[in-house]
């Protein structure tokens, strides 16, 4: 990995971190704890599509570690780790199958598996199976938020290609 790529990935990690910390302030009026928009999946998906699975995994792990240190609660490390890793696995497989097309399907499956991972973490922490009652609403919210982030990523890629083809003759935009 050369320095330029390392710097670019670090900038992506910073962006994901900032997005995550900002969206944790937005309240969601649903009677389920732990539902959030999941906007940092945009960055994970974008890096996965542009740079491949290994670099996306690096960005993801760094982001998870830093958010649990900055967010002030090390307890959330287990939830984020399980959710993020399951999400990454699912998105990696889906992306391989769909060959970087139909991004919204990838992100929907990623969001669903993220929620499943957090549910499993909650079951481990609370040592009871009763949290499975939230499963269905987590499924539906996963579809909705996954669709939203998938469309965001799609438009991001389209706009970057337009800018690149118009303004970047010297190949400077990542």
């Amino acid at each position, binding site marked *: 990995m050369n320095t330029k790529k390392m710097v670019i990935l670090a900038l992506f990690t910073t962006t994901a971190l900032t997005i995550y910390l900002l969206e944790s302030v937005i309240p969601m009026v649903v*009677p389920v704890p732990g539902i959030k928009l999941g906007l940092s999946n945009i960055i994970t998906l974008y890096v996965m599509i542009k740079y491949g699975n290994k670099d996306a995994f690096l960005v993801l792990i760094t982001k998870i570690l830093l958010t649990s240190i900055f967010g002030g609660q090390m307890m959330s490390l287990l939830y984020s780790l399980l959710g993020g890793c399951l999400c990454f696995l699912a998105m990696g497989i889906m992306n391989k199958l*769909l060959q*970087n097309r139909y991004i919204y399907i990838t992100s929907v499956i990623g969001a669903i598996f993220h929620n499943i991972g957090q549910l499993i973490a909650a079951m481990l922490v609370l*040592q009871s199976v009763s949290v499975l*009652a939230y499963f269905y609403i987590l499924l539906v919210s996963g579809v909705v938020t996954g669709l939203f982030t998938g469309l965001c990523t799609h438009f991001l890629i389209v706009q970057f*290609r337009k800018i690149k083809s118009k303004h970047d003759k010297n190949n400077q935009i990542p």
Partner: protein
Amino acid sequence: MRSDNNSYSDSQPLKQNTTNNVEKLLKKRAAIICSVLALIIIASGFGWFWWCNSSNSGQYAHLYQYGILIDTIDLAAVSDDYTFTITGTDGSYNIIEIHDHKIHIIDASCPDLVCVNTGYGKNNILPITCLPNSLIIKVTSQPAADSNEVDIDVYTY
């Protein structure tokens, strides 16, 4: 120039860069995945709905604060609606109302008001919880409380 784009090591998600056969295969795969997903969602919707409504509606409301049972209310024996307040150690409060043989929280000191938005507690699967104030309201059909209730002592986002 458009051709300069291809020299950059970039994956190409736009439609004009995939050939026709590959495009057809991907479209078929996407359709299969979408339909499987929709099937799973609808089926689990029915299953969840059936599971929620098949458990008996509760008659006794058990209130747990900091993991300890503090009160048991027989909802069928309540003739008039009334409200009462549960206060915590650091100034936190939850205002609970019994209305029409049902129990719900109408106001609380917690910042996100998840407990108020939960509405009426109907059965034991989804208890009314106020995690910042460590208050759990379970509605069951047994007059005696469960001995293996969940002690939630950590609240994370």
